[in-house]
């Protein structure tokens, strides 16, 4: 009986640690403020917070309990697209925090061509990901 209580306690503490670390990481990358800025929906920030918390819990439970649905291909394509959008925002937030682009512009003295650097980054990532999934992974 005591062992079961111990397990519950350990699991709960583990969840708290992982959850706070995850949210702290997302907060520092400024992804949510950026999305709010693009869509001009500042008033709904509380709603976004609750959405993230509740949806993460639901998805973790679905994953653990091996539930499965029966969705059509169109829905799967949409879900894949949104997964990619999130990872893209994550990657660009990391790029921005490490100041890669200002340093490159200053080092190579290419002040007027800064937008081409964005094009190169985006093209590189998209092509790299496609090549990986289609050719490299067997």
């Amino acid at each position, binding site marked *: 009986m005591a062992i079961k209580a111990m397990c519950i306690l350990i699991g709960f503490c583990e969840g708290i640690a992982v959850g706070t670390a995850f949210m702290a990481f997302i907060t520092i990358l400024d992804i949510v403020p950026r999305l709010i800025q693009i869509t001009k929906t500042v008033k709904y920030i509380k709603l976004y917070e609750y959405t993230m918390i509740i949806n993460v819990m639901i998805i973790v439970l679905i994953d653990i309990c091996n539930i499965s649905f029966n969705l059509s291909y169109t829905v799967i394509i949409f879900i*894949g697209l949104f997964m990619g959008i*999130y990872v893209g925002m994550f990657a660009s937030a990391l790029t921005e925090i490490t100041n890669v682009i200002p340093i490159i512009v200053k080092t190579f003295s290419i002040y007027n061509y800064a937008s081409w650097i964005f094009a190169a980054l985006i093209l*590189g990532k998209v092509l790299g990901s496609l090549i990986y999934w289609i050719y490299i992974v067997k």
Partner: protein
Amino acid sequence: MEKVYIQLKANIDMKLKSKCIVGDVAYVAAKYHIKKKIENIELGIVEGDFYNIISPTTLAQNIIDKVDNVDLKFIDDQDVLINIHPVSKKENKFWLVLRVMVVMVLLSIGTGIAIMNFHEDVSMKDVHIRIYKILTGMDIKRPLIIQIPYSIGIGVGMALFFNKVVPDRFGGDPSPMEVEMSSYRKKVNGYIRKKLKKGD
């Protein structure tokens, strides 16, 4: 005593070996004829390695030497940071385009390999197989139906973040990249000011 208000500019660009007058480094507010006289006072020839600073007291000394009967008031006490451009030899456009090409190739290949390593590191293939099983209940070895929209979505997400897709709809807010570049610039300038001031 004529009242004269002077506000020093923060950062200016000047060419090496050009003449520097008060009108270049400060905003002057005074009656018209005094203002013209003060703005044309010469401070010297621009010299130095890459940066140089002018302090308010230097400026005040130069003005008091040349113009009588003025009551100077400074609006803030920041030094002027001069960014010295060397006498520019005409750079061949070819080298500039070559540099841009090199940077683009470097960044494309570099980020491509980085994202491949990231996928391998977090075993994203297994996660995709699991997601496919949750969504449809079937086992599959290569869930391309998730992976191809995912790759396209990466590009869309990055473009969204960097302010490239809908540039007009942001209500005048600068993109994070521009804020980052300007704050980096400010930090560099602050450090240069501190270094020059101590050496002077």
